[in-house]
């Protein structure tokens, strides 16, 4: 262990004369092991202040940091039929769903929202890896379609933050069918002439990579993200040899021509604004912290459950 956990933490505990310190105030960097204070980590968008390792970020938190003034309106996603196959492995699928809902506080593995970034109106969707590995089932399919339809209706670009282990096995063939289904959403955007930007985050694998997550007009990845179709373990078992260092990581894909850019999460917002405004042939954005835009009355009326920063 290091000196923070052995020395500083007990000291802080004694300072506040509390016998128990909530575990979640500190977290350890997955990569360098540095202990990070939660508020500092949060302000740094869950990027390690020591080694710049990118840790998972919840979609809601990502949107708070992405949209101007942290203000966005959720796009309603039509609820699919739940547990369509009556799937049961060691646990029943509805039980797994409920556990994930409790753990994340979210309804499902994707959040869709509309708002402005750098005064550029957009629709964005973010996949939640904490929710059953971000897996793509009917809900995620519906979310992407709802997001694309909303973008087309409002004539706005669509930004998608991907993070998933792949398709949701508990929905069997219907999860597989989300590959062509979400591709229909991509086609809607393409035909409407709207930019579709994909940000690949750690990890994006399987059927998700092999559908909407690889079909962006611009493909950006966060540093160190694992991006693949078949995972490294499956490949090692198949070819029976060790894979090279950094195999299937964002930088490796960039080297192999599979991505446009690898961008640090902390500069991603500015980069998205820059790219979008050029694709939309708008003048350059004014950089800096912008005050939140006036809330749109129409959008607010539609979705009263506005998320607040």
């Amino acid at each position, binding site marked *: 262990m290091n000196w923070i956990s052995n020395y500083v933490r007990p000291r802080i505990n004694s300072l506040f004369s509390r016998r128990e310190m909530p575990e979640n105030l500190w977290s350890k960097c997955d990569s360098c092991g540095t202990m990070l204070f939660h508020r500092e980590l949060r302000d740094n968008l869950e990027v390690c202040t020591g080694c710049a390792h990118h840790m998972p970020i919840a979609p809601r938190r990502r949107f708070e940091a992405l949209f101007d003034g942290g203000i966005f309106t959720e796009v309603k996603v039509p609820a*699919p*039929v739940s*547990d*369509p*196959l*009556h*799937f*049961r*492995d*060691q646990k029943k699928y509805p039980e797994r769903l409920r556990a994930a809902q409790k753990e994340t506080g979210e309804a499902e593995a994707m959040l869709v929202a509309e708002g402005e970034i750098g005064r550029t109106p957009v629709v964005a969707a973010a996949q939640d890896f904490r929710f059953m590995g971000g897996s793509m089932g*009917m809900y995620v399919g519906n979310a992407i*379609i709802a997001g694309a339809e909303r973008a087309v209706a409002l004539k706005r670009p669509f930004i998608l933050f991907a993070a998933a282990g792949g*398709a949701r*096995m*508990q*929905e*069997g*063939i*219907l*999860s*597989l*069918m989300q*590959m*062509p*289904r979400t*591709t*229909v959403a*991509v*086609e809607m955007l393409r035909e409407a002439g709207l930019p579709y930007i994909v940000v690949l985050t750690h990890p994006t694998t*399987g*059927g998700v*990579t*092999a*559908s*909407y*997550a*690889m*079909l962006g007009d611009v493909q950006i990845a966060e540093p160190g993200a694992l*991006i*693949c*179709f*078949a995972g490294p373990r*499956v*490949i090692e078992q*198949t*070819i029976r*040899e060790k*894979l090279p260092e950094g*195999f*299937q990581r964002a930088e490796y894909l960039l080297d*192999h*021509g*599979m991505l446009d850019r690898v961008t640090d999460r902390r500069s991603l917002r500015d980069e998205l604004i820059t790219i979008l405004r050029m694709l939309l042939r708008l003048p350059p954005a004014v950089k800096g912290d912008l005050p939140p835009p006036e809330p749109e009355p129409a959008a607010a009326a539609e979705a009263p459950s506005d998320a607040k920063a």
Partner: protein
Amino acid sequence: MITYLEFEKPLSEIEGKAAELRALAKSGEGVDLSKEAEALDRKAAEMLRELYKSLSPWQKCQVARHPNRPHCKDYIEALFTEFTPLAGDRNFADDQAVMGGLARFDDRPVIVIGHEKGHDTQTRIARNFGMARPEGYRKAIRLMDLAERFGLPVITLVDTPGAYPGKGAEERGQAEAIARSTQKCLQIGVPLVSAIIGEGGSGGAVALATADRVAMLEHSVYSVISPEGCASILWKDAEKMREAAEALRLTAQDLAKLGVIDRIVPEPLGGAQRDPAASIAAVGKALGEMLAELDGKTGAQLMKARRRRLLDLGAKGLAA
């Protein structure tokens, strides 16, 4: 020589005995054994009927993977004339796990594309057991583009364990190639019909099976993951593939209920491997009928309906 599946073992014993008796009779021992042989034949036929009357999903997986099952090449040779293979992705290689080209189907020029598994050690290795690399999907994309340019219908024959999980395949963009192939299926304004003739393995199958009409042989399977893979992830035990096959709903019968496929093509008794010609003819009939259903539709109508079908898919689950 028939290859017997694990669950067909009792059958193999009876059929083996019948063959032995016949051989004995032929060698002229003088005893008339034909009656006994016939009795065994009847028993075997009865057993075959019983076995195939209610195959479990896992047994269907085994039938779908049967080495003697007719493969893409057999279908193309029997159902098409003037087949002219077209090769290569124009970027890197020709992937033999995907075969395709120009051909005539009922005299009508078409583009045919399919996964080919191979039938002996040498061809299986050459075909990589039907597991395509990015070049295979990029060849398919190229052929679909050709079909679109010249207004030819596309027929796809799906039979793959899945896309190949290899180092080079990943480096050359396996995921992107599959995604683009699926996208191309949605972009062509010509009729696109598909038949799943064996294994419909995950994304590798979707890349070719995103069609206007999808038919599936009675004992073929189509799934998001292999039962073994699913068992090892969700049950943490690859031996639970029977349970996984059950839970995944990967049979033609379940997929028809879910609206993922449009028709089930009946197989000869004992599976396609027992009578390849009959199976091939049945698939040919289904392909012809599906193409006829699309006659007279414009490219825009076809594409719109193809998308609508996907958008509406699965709205009701198994209760549909």
